[in-house]
């Protein structure tokens, strides 16, 4: 009798669970492994924002948010396992947080009708929504990053890079190689000399690359690094006394973790970003009040306001706004993954909306459409202040060079469509 009662109670609880949490979001996070130091703040930011919505607003459109977090250890196989294990639980959207996992999920999620948001990573040409129907990479991608880096260098060189030397130090992987095409095209257009310096994983030993930089004396160094590669590169740049203000990293090379080990000498190092930095936004007061003070902060609660925490928070905000858009389009609160996809495809982010969310000026204004799943490619440059131990934006959000990027995106997405027998279109 007792056993029957317990079984019935457990069954009742399980049956009741979906009713208590109608909107299921999934975070494929990595709080363990070699990249945990970067995975933790992003995961904390992502989780804290949804906790805030549940605590302050009662969820999204009256529906509570259920966040499923699955540990990938930044391992592609584990990421796919996480996807398979959670997709049946009503996941509305996946944030894979890894280019490798994203590539694996592109065909799977498309077949399953679940949208994927690879924000600032993944396959760049997924911007073409007519080919990649379920994949979104707004507000910016790696090619946008490379283009805006060159734009910034043009700005600080009176509009000309003619005869200048630019070196790209990159993680020798699909991720690290992403900006090469863009930079090669930009080199042709602006007349600078590009040299490529690959660094093998994990990147703990980079003496050869930095000796080469010291010999060849490039005017600027760009970096597409990740994990320990970033810290070692910045330290080596310090060692050879390379001017930090001439060293620019992609957003995955622009966290506090990357610059703090080099101490004061990392001062002036620059990093690209597609969102703002710091805690000077009203939403952080709400997080303190509704999340931290009530003991519901994710993890140890010690990452709030860091660059990667802000990125996780921004990703969660974009997911929540897409869900709201989907609710408005379809007139239902408990949306499906297909409806969520519609919400993402019709997402509009503008300054009044950002201000109303307590995030004025936190990110660029952009809109998504069937043809454009990648936003407007707006990227800013941030700079590290070693004495204050903080990042600060030194430029406005600027748009990437669409003349260079659009043909590349069309070419790459057309090749993908041909390989996979996809007929591009919006229906």
């Amino acid at each position, binding site marked *: 009798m007792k056993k029957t009662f317990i079984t019935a109670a457990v069954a009742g609880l399980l049956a009741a669970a979906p009713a208590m949490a109608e909107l299921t979001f999934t975070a494929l996070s990595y709080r363990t492994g*070699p990249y945990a130091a970067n995975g933790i703040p992003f995961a904390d930011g992502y989780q804290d924002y949804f906790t805030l919505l549940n605590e302050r607003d009662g969820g999204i459109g009256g529906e509570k948010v259920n966040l499923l977090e699955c540990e990938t250890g930044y391992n592609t196989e584990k990421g796919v396992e996480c996807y398979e294990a959670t997709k049946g639980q009503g996941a509305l959207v996946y944030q894979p947080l890894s280019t490798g996992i994203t590539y694996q999920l592109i065909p799977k999620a498309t077949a399953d009708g679940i949208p994927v948001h690879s924000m600032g990573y993944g396959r760049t040409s997924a911007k073409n929504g007519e080919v990649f129907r379920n994949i979104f990479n707004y507000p910016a991608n790696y090619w946008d990053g490379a283009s805006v880096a060159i734009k910034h260098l043009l700005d600080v060189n009176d509009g000309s890079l003619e005869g200048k030397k630019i070196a790209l130090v990159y993680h020798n992987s699909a991720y690290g190689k992403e900006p090469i095409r863009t930079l090669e095209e930009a080199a042709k257009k602006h007349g600078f000399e590009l040299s490529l310096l690959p660094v093998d994983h994990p990147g*703990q030993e980079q003496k*050869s690359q930095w000796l080469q930089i010291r010999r060849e004396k490039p005017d600027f160094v760009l970096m597409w690094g990740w994990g320990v590669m970033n810290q070692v590169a910045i330290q080596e740049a310090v060692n050879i006394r390379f001017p930090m203000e001439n060293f620019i990293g992609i957003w995955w090379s622009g966290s506090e973790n990357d610059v703090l080990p080099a101490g004061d000498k990392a001062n002036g190092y620059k990093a690209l970003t597609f969102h703002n930095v710091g805690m000077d936004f009203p939403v952080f007061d709400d997080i303190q009040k509704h999340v931290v003070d009530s003991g519901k902060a994710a993890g140890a609660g010690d990452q709030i306001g860091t660059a990667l925490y802000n990125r996780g928070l921004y990703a969660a905000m974009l997911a929540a706004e897409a869900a709201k858009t989907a609710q408005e389009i379809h007139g239902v609160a408990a949306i499906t993954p297909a409806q969520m996809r519609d919400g993402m495809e019709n997402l509009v982010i503008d300054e009044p909306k950002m201000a109303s969310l307590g995030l004025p000026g936190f990110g660029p204004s952009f809109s998504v459409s069937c043809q454009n799943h990648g936003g407007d490619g707006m990227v800013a440059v941030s700079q590290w202040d070693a004495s204050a131990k903080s990042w600060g934006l030194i430029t406005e959000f600027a748009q990437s060079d669409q003349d260079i990027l659009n043909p590349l995106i069309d070419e790459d997405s057309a090749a993908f469509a041909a390989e996979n027998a996809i007929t591009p279109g919006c229906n």
Partner: protein
Amino acid sequence: MPEQFIFGIEVFLNGLMAGVLYALVALGFVLIYKASGIFNYAQGVMALFAAMTLVGIMDGQVPFSHLINAIFGTDVHHFGWHLPGLVGILLTMLVMIALALIVQKVIFKHLVGQEPIILFMATIGLAYFMEGLGDLMWGADIKKLNVGLPQGINIWIDETTYNIFDYGFFIDNLDIVATIIAVILVAVLVAFSQYTKQGRAMRAVADDHQAALSVGVSLNFIWIMVWSVAGFVALVAGVVWGTKSGVQFSLSLIALKALPVLMLGGFTSIPGAIVGGLIIGVGEKLFEFAIGPLIGGATENWFAYVLALIFLVFRPQGLFGEKIIERV
């Protein structure tokens, strides 16, 4: 003098320095293999654990603070002290000795006489356990390690070589210090194994466990001692590599750099680890310098193994390893 030749000399010198760093990691493997026949997969993780512990102790971090706070609802993180590097190193060494004691009592004491593959598998388990334990004790964030080791270009070498070659060589002060530390470490280890009672006992155990036992050598004590010494070597490697890149999980991957050194230098020779390290360091750097640009670069990781394989074909026991003779 041709410019490329001058650059080549700079690359050669930096290769020597990198080789010393690789050798520092390889030394830990050699010590344990020599005394117990165990290939210690956990050596890289030991370096990580030692460095994390050192930073934690120096900064007065409360171990397991996240766990304690989660269970008891407290908010403790720091003891409020900051210790000098030397004190931190001494206290960390005590932790590594305690770890050696636990490893021996809990794991290897029960595996005496087992096949080498069983012992190897046990070290794999130990590595993953220590990775988790380190995270749980000290957190997964990247920590800055500052025990006073200098870093950055050596100005004297830069200026002197500039006066000679019209090009100043880059040599990192940290690499110079690491070289001095490695030389002292090897000298102490060789002196210890040759001239002390415990060192001779260690060599006796390495030659023949049963024979050593029959003349009264305590296998238990020797293995604890060897794991402690390997822990000390791991601490030294952790300090040098941690100063270079910050103390973080990836430190455990430095073991990958030691494998070709071991293949080349032999698993049982302390001088072999040093010479092997130097050959690998110079070989991979010169190859990257001369051939790398022609084939797209990033050759160092795989070339180190190719170099080691070439040596292995001609001397399977490594340059300084003991020749394996099995009579039937």
